């Protein structure tokens, strides 16, 4: 399924990105651009809705790492409703230590 990313900035300064489809090397840059935009708008939190994300390749994970670096350590990154395969990838590569994994978004 084709990849798409939609983003919105909420009133409290939270950037919410919804990822849909398959995130591989050919489309990872779209995700990266969306992250850069959120960073440029000085988002206070980054919420990644992954409910409809079916696959994430190494390139996708690298953008997650990039997001963490770009946003800075005081901006929490939430990974919401990741499907099993995506969640496994994040956990096996140890990145779950750097983000907050939730089934439903609830700010901490």
């Amino acid at each position: 399924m084709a990849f798409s990313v939609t983003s919105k900035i909420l009133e409290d300064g939270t950037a919410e990105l919804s990822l849909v489809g398959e995130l591989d090397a050919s489309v990872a840059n779209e995700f990266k651009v969306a992250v850069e935009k959120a960073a440029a708008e000085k988002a206070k939190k980054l919420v990644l809705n992954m409910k409809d994300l079916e696959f994430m390749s190494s390139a996708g994970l690298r953008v997650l790492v990039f997001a963490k670096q770009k946003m800075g350590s005081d901006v929490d990154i939430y990974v919401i409703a990741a499907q099993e395969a995506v969640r496994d990838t994040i956990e096996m590569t140890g990145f779950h230590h750097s983000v907050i994994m939730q089934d439903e978004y609830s700010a901490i």
Partner: protein
Amino acid sequence: MERVDAYPTHEYQGFKLRPGKPFPFGATFVPGGVNFSIYSSHATSCTLALFNKGEAQPKIEIPFPDEFRIGDVFAMTVFGLDYENIEYGYRMEGPFDPQQGHRFDPSKILLDPYAKAISGRDVWGKPPNWENIFPHRSLLVFDDFDWDDDRPLEIPMEDLVIYEMHVRSFTRHPSSGVKFPGTFAGIRQKLPYLKELGVNCIELMPIYEFDEFENSRTSPETGETLMNYWGYSTVGFFAPKSGLAATGKLGMQVDELKALVKDLHRNGIEVFLDVVFNHTAEGNENGPYISFKGIDNKTYYMLTPEGYYFNFSGTGNTLNCNNPVVRNIVLDCLRYWASEYHIDGFRFDLASILGRDPLGYPLSNPPLLESLAFDPILAKCKLIAEAWDAGGLYQVGSFPAYGRWAEWNGKYRDGLRRFLKGEPGLAGDIAQRLQGSPDLYASRGPTASINFITCHDGFTLYDLVSYNDKHNEANGEGNRDGANDNDSWNCGWEGPSTDPGINSMRIRQMKNAAAMLLVSQGVPMILMGDEVARTQNGNNNTYCQDNSLNWLDWNLMNSQSELFRFFKNCIKFRLAHPVFRNRWHLSNQDRIGSGYADISWHGTQAWNADWSGSSRLLAFMLNGKHARGGMVEDDDIYMAMNMHWDSQWFELPRLPEGKNWHVFANTSAPSPEDVWETGHEPLLENQNGILLGDRSVVILVGK
């Protein structure tokens, strides 16, 4: 201001280029591009081949312009590459003159010796495409892993308890219950088990990229595919084996292994790698071109004057480790693993080869071993040698150590095994082994001695007490492979038995072995699964078996809980008592005025050990005031070992006023009275002596 050194100066068929930096070797990200650097002492020209991931043919081949070569190094920056989608290799031109040692073949595309990840065997055991013109491909790797505050643990050597395991074997068995069996991620899921057992170091059998299909064949006995399962044959020294990672098929093996190391460290467990620098997967003159052979055969391999491959490793070729160029790649490699993966220590397979000169003669002052010992990045890493090779060099006790190197103590293994099976006349030898082999390591101290009774080579502990002879038929070599001198004893029946007497003796013998190992001065190493009586059905060389001969059966945790508990309690006991973990050798004297020698020797009579040629028993007492050279005070320990087939009464040495003997372990007592929790040892009823059953040991605590 924008950087001017990040702009291309050259162009080739639409690819923007710039003369590269020779350092560092390999492929490195630079602003806007990738720097490719590779050296060869004898190549006349070099071409970079770039592939889109998985495609049969390269998308572009870029010859290095003459002006991009400095010395013997070809270096080029290529701009605008799609990092995630690139595989790369090299073609090298040069002479083909085997007698002179040269085997250049520009028709081959070659793996970068510095490749940090390698594709081609992404999923373990998946049959490769044999038509692939470039089967092992170099990948680009990001160094963006977030380690938080992790670094190598630097646990003092004398405090280690090592657990030797094979990544795939540990969780591949269906009974493991992990989500991704046989992988780095699988080990992470089993962390609670390692914590419960209490080991603080795991030593991973080879995890550098290897080809499980190297020399694969069908077993005439079982019809199964026999593989290069253990992996003692390296394809790439800088890359973790993709097929051992659940995420290998996504190219994330680097992250997965780092995540494992980080989690182990968080749980207080160090990680050692078993590294194989003595040979590579390229075999001899009939073997494949993968990397070194086509890049600079004469530099990388030890060759006879006629240009054939020396075979000190028993596997076809021998890496030319004391050529300065090869020495540097070994050093670069270990520095990379220590700094980039936070590896705590290395065990060097057939390390004696690393001390041979380019013609194969042993060097008295081998520069490679010296540079590793004095390297600033490796300064806190543990370095452990398998101090022999397949060419007849045996250096246990004499490996060039430079104050750093420890050794797999083969004499400990042999001595303990013979004593265990009841051979007479070994009391003197065992006294040395239990003290950390001062006869071998007088000036190096007990931590030079890695004590082990079993390791991946040879019988498991259960098989050591269940088989007199090896049974390697499944390996398809007519039972000719594997060692013949196993110093094993089957307790009266070859293989599995239904006789309760035999089975209880086997359990007792395994407990005896565990007890002796875990009270010995030096560094104990346990083979994966010995704590639950893992068997290989008498096969003492399972290098090719991708099946239950190697896989740890987790059902044993239930059926062998008694043995597991014994191991676990002995490990805790060792870690609770510094008197077992001295940095320096015991003196057998009282140099601190405690009234007792640091260690004293006893027999059936206290203070009177039987060192005779017919002795099958020995007892010793460690005085707690001497712990850590007298720096800390510990309890007193008494251990008696009766390897005789009859029970023996041991008179006990008298403790100072106010102290009494308590029972920590008695292997002839039925479970759960065979071993006690540290700190909860019951008082011994008769303080004057104790009856040891046949083939059993007792450990007492004086407090």
